[in-house]
């Protein structure tokens, strides 16, 4: 064989397993899912071609009593719920950053603290949600007991529409902050100390150093955390499923929960596929917007791919 041809063949042979797996387990199923969204598939019968009917029902509107009404009001409500839960992302980053700054100092026992903060991340979401559902218990939960101790009457966290989403957000922050903290720590340690030294010599105080050195140098890390946080947040399901079962009165039902219900509880696989693809498109749009504007605020990004 010609040497070059053989080299190419070897290279393709090495990446072949990965490509096969990607095709078989990701690309083809996702494409199939899009194809399925054009069908009505009750799982127990053959799929029925319905064209764009699922998509029209999902995204479009009609006129009722002279007013414009969504074809599927629940979809928009759940989209709103999911967007609300995205509030966890900035809070997680802030909390992670604070802890990272604290643990970057040469304190005694900081390795112990780092371990403790990473434990929630590696714990099973289901187990975490079970524990938090007890913490949030209106009468006996530790949170309300603590609030009672300082004289505040805690709300029915998982029992009222107003407080259920904040409760889920609190749990999500607790669960994820450790991982983001690790990322920030790594990012902090990559900041050359000469920058701080020269800034100190020039008379910059701690706040200025933070604002003009730490934050910009950390911006790639923050960018990463924001993108990954939004992608994961839009897919929130595990925590909601155990903590609130989407309730009370569907106030914590997310898009993925709606997808699950449609596909596995109500046997509308075609519609569930449409929900899934709409989620993909939304996340894609979010990510592309962030990518487009990254040069404006992320250090080191020059807009060249």
């Amino acid at each position, binding site marked *: 064989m010609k040497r070059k041809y053989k080299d190419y063949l070897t290279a393709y042979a090495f990446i072949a397993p990965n490509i096969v797996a990607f095709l078989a387990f990701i690309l083809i199923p996702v494409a199939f899912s899009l194809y399925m969204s054009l069908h009505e598939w*009750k*799982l*127990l*019968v053959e799929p029925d071609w319905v064209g764009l009917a699922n998509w029209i029902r999902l995204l479009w509107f009609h006129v009722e009593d002279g007013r414009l009404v969504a074809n599927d009001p629940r979809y928009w409500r759940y989209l709103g719920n999911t967007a609300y839960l995205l509030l966890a992302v900035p809070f997680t980053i802030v909390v992670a950053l604070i802890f990272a700054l604290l643990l970057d100092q040469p304190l005694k026992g900081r390795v112990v603290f780092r371990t403790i903060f990473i434990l929630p991340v590696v714990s099973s979401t289901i187990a975490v949600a*079970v524990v938090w*559902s*007890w913490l949030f*218990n*209106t*009468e006996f939960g530790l949170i309300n007991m603590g609030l*009672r101790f300082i004289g505040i009457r805690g709300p*029915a966290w*998982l*029992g*009222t*529409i107003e407080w259920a989403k904040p409760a889920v957000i609190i749990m999500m922050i607790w669960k994820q902050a450790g991982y983001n903290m690790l990322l920030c720590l790594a990012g902090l340690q990559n900041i050359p100390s000469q920058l701080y030294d020269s800034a100190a010599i020039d008379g910059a105080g701690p706040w200025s150093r933070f604002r003009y050195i730490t934050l910009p140098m950390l911006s790639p890390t923050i960018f990463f955390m924001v993108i990954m946080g939004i992608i994961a947040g839009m897919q929130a399901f595990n925590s909601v499923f155990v903590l*609130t*079962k989407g*309730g*009370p*009165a*569907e106030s914590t039902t997310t898009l993925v929960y709606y997808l699950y*219900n449609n596909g*596995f*509880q*109500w*046997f509308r696989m075609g519609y569930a596929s449409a929900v899934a693809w709409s989620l993909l498109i939304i996340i894609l749009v979010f990510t592309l917007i962030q990518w487009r504007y990254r040069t404006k605020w992320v250090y080191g990004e020059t807009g060249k791919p």
Partner: protein
Amino acid sequence: MAIRKYRCAIAVAVIALLLAPAVFAGGDGEDDAAAQEPVTLRVSDWRGDAGLVEYYAWMTEFEENTGMTIETEVTPFAEYFTKLQTTAAAGIAPDLWNMSSAFLPQIAELGVILDIGDLVDQDPDFSWDDYHEVAVEESFYNGVAYRLPLGLFPAIFYYNKTMFDEAGLDYPNDDWNWDDLLEAALALTRDTNGDGTVNQWGFLVSKAMQVGWSSFVWQNGGEIINQAKTAAAIDQPASIEAIQFLVDLMNVHKVSPGIEAAEQLGDPFLTGQVAMTVHGVWKLNPYSGIEDFEWDVAMIPMQRQSATSSIGGGYTIFKDTEYVSEAFELMKFITEKSQSQKSAGIPAKIENMDLYFEWWDNVPNIAAIGRMIQFGHTLDITLGWNEWRSAAETEVSLALLGRKTAAEAARDAAKAINEVLARQ
């Protein structure tokens, strides 16, 4: 090297070795269609080994009695019905299927299960009259018989005797109506540890349709969905009244913990937070382990009439099975055996009610369940049941949370239910 020279031959030999099993393994089955081959029945179930202990003993007995061979195939519930459908479409489904009430309409609509009406009529030993009416009702779909009744799981009224004693109240009896329930609930809602907040509640109000409010709707003479199962009936005045009663219990009289209490992990009745609750008979098992207080059962407090929700299990036969009468024999056998197996569910056979009282003689008033089952009402399972049930439950939650009146919630629930039914 020698290998390089003969590599073609080696490759052919290796491939031949790999393909040999496939060549020789196929085609075995075709030769065995002789009449001498013993009958093999295949049964499918979703219960794991733990739930099938007695069942396997029955199967051994059946094999010894009849000389047939029984193969039980267990598939986890999540894939159970998909697997049934795919094997049915390919014509290779098992002969007998464990069939839950929630899926009977869909599977029946597919046309893959056998109408056993004639088999039952021609059988001298079997009579529908031996079984509770509500169990018989669940064996049919659209007027066609598909299952034989196994056991029944109605909802029943549980109350905490110790709390009643402490409050000096009389225990619930068969004549209790909603006013009695309200009166007792008010007296039993207290702050027992003096910290300023109520921590003992009178009655647990739940948003769940099956064990929460369906019984109340039916007791008031209302329905959730009409007799023909074609349209919602939850917006009838009688139904709205029933829901309003429960909403008032929660928001006006405040005798129930919040809406999340019924959903949380940890049963509020079990942990001694509520004095009275309506729940399924399957709670008899966990409640029998209670040591902190005395408890008992009673008929659910009635209104215009008595009613309770009821659901039961059963098996169905694959339409294209080779062994129709054999499968029916097995079905009858399993059904008969289930009537005497200890379970939280009532045996579907009326005469076995005494057995049930024996199994649960730790519950003083267990006979109340026997009286309650006569007023059993099926859950009106239709295509799309799961979807319209959760839509109705969401509306009822909104009423319980005080966001809508019961009338508004009922109207919106009716709209949602009709929408789901129209889409089936």
